[in-house]
């Protein structure tokens, strides 16, 4: 991964962004945070509706139709801005423990979002009347809050990866 990151940092797009990093990195990082805000906001609306704490004037499917596309759009924005950040600073991103742990959390979150989205469309009635009352569903919904928290913390820790000690490849380099 170290070699790949170093090779990536010599490619033309990476070099271009390194030359203009003074403004490009903060702007792309800010877009990434705007994406995080939009994703968290949308996911929060869906999760709080599943828990029955917010937006109970709308059905689960209506809530999904309102916020699902915004959540998906935000995830695409996060993917695009995240990829740009990796290309701009490959070593800073790829040679860290925080980045890969964050990616594992992101993959888990994406699976949860896609699974829920499909399930609520296919089993609307069951979700509305049965699933929503299951303790497992409620606990899983609460756990998504924890997962979002982990994703945000790990994203910030990319800048502080040395705190992981021997787990961080950066400290071995």
């Amino acid at each position, binding site marked *: 991964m170290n070699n790949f990151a170093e090779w990536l940092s010599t490619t033309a797009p990476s070099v271009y962004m390194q030359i203009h990093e003074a403004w490009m990195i*903060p702007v792309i*990082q800010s877009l990434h945070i705007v994406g995080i*805000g939009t994703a*968290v*906001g949308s996911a929060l609306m869906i999760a709080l509706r599943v828990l029955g704490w917010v*937006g109970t004037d709308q059905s689960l499917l209506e809530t999904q139709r309102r916020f699902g596309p915004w959540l998906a759009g935000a995830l695409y924005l996060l993917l695009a801005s995240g990829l740009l950040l990796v290309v701009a600073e490959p070593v800073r991103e790829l040679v860290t423990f925080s980045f890969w742990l964050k990616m594992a959390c992101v993959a888990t979150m994406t699976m949860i979002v896609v699974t829920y989205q499909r399930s609520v469309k296919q089993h609307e009635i069951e979700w509305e009347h049965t699933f929503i009352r299951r303790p497992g569903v409620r606990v899983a919904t609460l756990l998504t809050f924890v997962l979002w*928290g982990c994703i945000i913390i790990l994203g*910030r820790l990319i*800048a502080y990866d040395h705190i992981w*000690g021997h787990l961080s490849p950066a400290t071995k380099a």
Partner: protein
Amino acid sequence: MDLTAWLKGLEDSGLAVGIRSSLYYFPFLESVHVMALAVVFGTIVVVDLRALGIASRHRPFTRMSSELLKITWGAFLVSVLTGTVMFTTNARVYAHNTAFQVKMVLLLIAGINMAVFHLSAGRTVARWDQAPAAPGIGRLTAGLSIGLWVGIILAGRVIGFTTTGAQAKEAPPPAGNFDDFLNNSPSSSPAPAQPPTPQ
């Protein structure tokens, strides 16, 4: 009272010294700040898009705003607390940082913008609560609100890039890591004056 002396006093407070001497507190505060900000931004945009008539056009505005703005204010309080504590760790540098000053002005304008909304469209909300969008002034302030918050995020991120190492001369950055933490044998110097490099 002399502002610089007061800012220096903040930096010398037990809280600020404690955070600077730890490898973990500052990144933790930053992470909580971003989490709170994500909730503030996310919920404000949901309400603004409703007022603009772009999304949730058929839901009563008052229902959405009363449900969501409680969450917004709670998260805003968390972001103010974490932001204030981070400020104390390097108060003189932040106070003189242009991006920080811009962020504070944008926050103030966002507050005024919100007050304008409440005093204009907010007063007539009974008339347009079920309508697809707020009246003109309400849509204007809702649009401005989204723009201002994107600006606040950008200014906040620039702070991290323009204050890094500003006090590096005073003390070495903290060394030590999670291994030291587990082994309970910190290799860092007792009280570095510089918070961990935020970028």
